[in-house]
Structure formats: C-alpha cells, structure tokens
C-alpha cells in the first residue's frame, strides 16, 4: 500500500514534469520578440508572399490558443512538427540521429562511471594521500575545462592518429567487421573527450560519498572483527557509499547531454548534439523545439528511473 502510493506519487510528479516540458517548449519559441518566420528566413531572398505562405504552412497565422492546442494534440501523437531546414517531420530527423548519440553517450557513460567510481573510492580511502591529491586536483581542473576546448586540444595533439570528423569513412568495406572497426576508430576522440569531463564529476561525487561513511561505527566493527582493510572497503564501506553516487550518476544525465552537444559539434559526430548545433545556426525553431522537448523529456524519464532504482537498491528508502 505504502509502496503503491509512493510509486504513484513519483509517476505523477514525472508526468507533471513532462507536461511542463511540453508547455515550456511551446512558449519559449512563441513568446519571443520578433517573427519566427522572419528570423528563420534571414539571409535568404524571400518575398512577403512567401513568408505569408510559410506562416500558413507552419500554422503561425492562427491564434495562440489554437496553435497551443494543435501543438499538444500533435505531440501526443508523436508529431513534433516540420523542420524548416530539412523540410521533413522533426520526429523523423531526430530518430535518424538517435543511434550515433546513443553509441557515443552510452560508451562514454559506461567508461566514465566505472573509472570515476573506482578513482573516487581509491582517493577517499586514502584521504590526503598523494593519489588523493593528484586525483582530486586533476578532477577539479577537468571540471574547469570546457568540453569543446578539450576536444579541440585532443584533436590537435593526436594529429592524424585518429579521424576527427564524422562517424565513418565513405571508402570502408561494407562488411560488418570493417564498418565496426571504422566506427570504433572514429569513436575514440569524441568518447575520450566526454569521458574526461564527465568522469571528473563522478570521481568527486564518489569521493565525497565515501568520505561521509568513513567514520561510521559499522566500519570500526568490521575492523574489530579482524577484517583486512581491503575487505572492509569492498564489502562494507563501498556498498553503502555507492548508492548516493549511482543516483547522482542518473541525476547528472543532463550534464552528459550538454557535453554531447559540444563534443558532437567539435567532432562533427552525426548525432543529436550536432543536430542541435544545426538547429541553432539555422535557426530552425521547430527542430530546436522538438529537440528541447525530446532531450528534456529523456532527462525527466532518467530521473524517474534513478528514483525508482534507488528504492529498489536501498531498502531503507522504501518507507519514505
């Protein structure tokens, strides 16, 4: 019963957030100074008649409440409108670009989480040791490094060792192994960039999370039992400290999204981040609105997953 109420509360909260995302997406691009058609066609030869036609085509000539209603009903059907630059449904364009982003973000997140948590545990366990100072110093520095600049530096430092543009070469043999190797080769620099920036955050989170546990009485008990230091860390301290860290990993999903935009822009990685860049340089308001709704929606869902996962992993949270 209790669990049911909590679950429905979380689901309701997430649903409300999704509605807020949709509303935000609409008003952000409508309640702005200036005519969207004028700014989207800036720099291109257009007549007043063509602009009027575009306005009719995108439904911008209707009253705001009607536009809002149409937008909401289309959104529920999975229709995000038509892209101005691609002249195709926004949902189609976004779906096409989803794969490369999932590959890049997935690979980087797995590596960054593993490496970050491991470094964080080691640093916290030997607090103020040379390793801790070095790891914390490097992490703080990396935290201060703009993602895109790191990408450009890596690109320049490695020279021709790794490809720096796109996801695959056009002249690669069509069989699966060569294609996979080619994509993997292209993936090295972008994922390295993303890992470096995101990993620093996870390391610092894990470190402070474990430091919170360091003086807990149950660790003294474990040591008094005669357990080796290594076992105390692995079996007692880390399992307790890793929970808040894992949740934070999910909560900081937005950070990875932001990192993906600049990384993909630097390396011309053909994913959603590069699409974001294309949409803002257009500017293509409908594409940008669709991207905003999709990414913000994804972040809300990830957040819900984190909360639910936390309840499953940590029995203490169940009664809250």
């Amino acid at each position: 019963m209790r669990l049911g109420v909590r679950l429905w509360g979380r689901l309701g909260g997430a649903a409300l957030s999704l509605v807020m995302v949709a509303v935000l997406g609409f008003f952000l691009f409508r309640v702005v100074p200036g005519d969207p058609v004028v700014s989207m066609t800036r720099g291109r030869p257009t007549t007043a008649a063509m602009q009027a036609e575009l306005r009719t085509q995108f439904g911008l000539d209707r009253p705001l409440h009607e536009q809002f209603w149409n937008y909401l009903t289309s959104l529920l059907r999975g229709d995000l409108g038509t892209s101005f630059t691609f002249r195709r449904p926004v949902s189609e364009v976004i779906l096409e670009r989803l794969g490369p982003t999932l590959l890049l973000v997935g690979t980087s997140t797995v590596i960054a989480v593993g490496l970050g948590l491991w470094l964080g545990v080691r640093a916290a366990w030997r607090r103020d040791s040379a390793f801790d100072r070095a790891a914390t110093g490097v992490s703080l520095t990396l935290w201060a490094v703009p993602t895109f600049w790191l990408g450009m530096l890596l690109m320049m430092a490695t020279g021709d060792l790794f490809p720096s543009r796109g996801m695959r070469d056009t002249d690669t043999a069509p069989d699966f192994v060569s294609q996979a190797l080619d994509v993997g080769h292209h993936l090295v620099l972008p994922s390295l960039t993303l890992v470096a920036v995101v990993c620093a955050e996870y390391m610092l989170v894990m470190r402070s999370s474990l430091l919170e546990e360091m003086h807990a009485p149950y660790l003294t008990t474990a040591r008094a039992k005669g357990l080796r230091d290594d076992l105390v860390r692995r079996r007692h301290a880390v399992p307790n400290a890793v929970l808040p860290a894992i949740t934070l990993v999910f909560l900081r999903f937005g950070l990875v999204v932001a990192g993906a935009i600049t990384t993909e822009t630097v390396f011309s990685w053909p994913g959603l981040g590069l699409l974001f860049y294309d949409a803002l340089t257009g500017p293509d308001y409908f594409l940008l609105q669709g991207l905003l709704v999709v990414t913000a929606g994804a972040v809300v869902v990830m957040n819900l997953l984190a909360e639910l996962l936390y309840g499953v992993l940590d029995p203490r949270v169940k009664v809250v």
Partner: protein
Amino acid sequence: MSGFLTRGTGRGGKTGFLAHRAGVAGAAVLAVAALVAVIAPLLIPADALDVTRVTAAPWQSPGADHWLGTDHTGRSVALLVAQGAGTSLFVGLTAAVLAVGIGTLVGIVSGHFGGLLAGALLRVTDFFLVLPALVLAIALSTVLPRGLGTIVLAIGLTSWPSTARMVRAQTLTIEARPFVERARALGGGHGHVIGRHVLPSVVPLVLVNATLAVASAIVAESTLAFLGLGDPTRISWGAMLHQAQLHGAVPQRAWWFLLPPGVAIVVVVLAFTLVGRALEAVVTPKR
C-alpha cells in the same frame, strides 16, 4: 573580517580562509585577472583589435613582435586574451548574481511560507533542477537577440535551482530552532524572522554558492560563445575559440590561437572553484 581570515587556532589548527592555501592562491589569480580585465581596455589601442586596421600577417606563430602569435585576421592573440578577460568575468559575475539572487529568493520564500505557494515553488525548482541547464540556455539565447544581456539572462535564468534547494533547506533548519520560535512568540512578523534570523544564517552559504556559480557561469558563457550564440561585437575567450574552430586553427596546427583562451578559462574557473571550496570549508567547519 580578520576573524574570518585567521579565525581561532583550535584543535584542528587554523580554520580561517588564510589557512586554505589553494583558496588563497585562487584569490590571488582572480585579483590578477580582475586587474587585467580593468586595465586591458584602457591600454590596448582600438586599432590593434580592429580586423580592418591590423597590419600584421595572419596565423603568425609566437615571435618577438607578437609573443602569442596572431589570429586568422592578424590580430595579436595576447591582446585578444587580455581584452576577453573583461567579457568573461563580467558575464560570469552578473549571471552568477542573477542566478543566486533568484535562488535565494525562491529558497527563502518556499522555506519560510509553507502551503500551496511553497509546494508550487518546490515543484518548479525540482523541474528546473532536472532539466539540462545548457540546453535551456541555448534555446533561450537562440530566440532572444544576440548580446551580452541575453547571455547573462540565459545563464542566470537556468542555473538558480541548486541555490534555491540549498537555501530552502537552510531556512527550514533555522526556523525549526527554538530561538526563532521565541522570536515568533514575542510577536516577530515574517519580515523580522526572515531579516533577522534566516538571512544572516543563509548569507555565508549563499556566498559560497555564488563563488562556485561564477565558475560554472564562465564555462557556460564560453560554451554559448563557442556555439556562435555570443555577443558578436565583443571579444571573449569563448568567442575566440569559436573563431579558432570556424577558421580551422586545428588543421592548421595553430596551437597559439587555441591554447591561450582555453588556458585562461581553465585558470580563472579553477581559481573561482578553489576560492569557493575554501570558503565552504571556513563556513561549514568539519567535525
């Protein structure tokens, strides 16, 4: 004030700001950066930064004339970096003040006044806390006209939620204390409780938060400028990197155009972070 700098020497040694060497180093770096930001516009002649009036050759590597080389138009990279300090610091500081201001207001209001208003504010805070701030900032600066004000607004309006959460928690903690109950019992109104009890306890935390907020605001500014959303009439570190990317500094191996603005960002952001962490350690002493 001196108490804050070199507070008592208890069991844990000195706990004042001066005891945190990294923080002091950060503060020194910031002083230098601020000095550069103020002096650069006064000393650098306008001709040296005007694309139409520079005479030096483009893409020169560092040498006697231009000790950090020149960019794609022949302007000195060293002068550009010095000139860019002002923009980056200005945007970082104002955006942080805006964000922390909104956060403090929302936090105190939702912590002090319970009920429906607090619930709604908390809901909105959580909503914006979850959303990727950079994505929202990009959307905002795309729809608004390009300019410094837009960047400040885009960063400030999207990075307040964490401050709001923290201030709310602190407000709730303080208001649960007996002395606040006493103040209420003696007839202290909302204004009295907030002004005399809540604010003084919130201010130190807010200052720490503001320092760290400047750091992320500077990174955010450089990212927006890199994506071409900056003020096109101003030189900033992010805008320089935007130009470097646009004009192919990487394929040309023009490291002198790529390194200085990035290093400047990292050094200043790191300095703000270190000062913020030192302040945090002073304000909330560990057991």
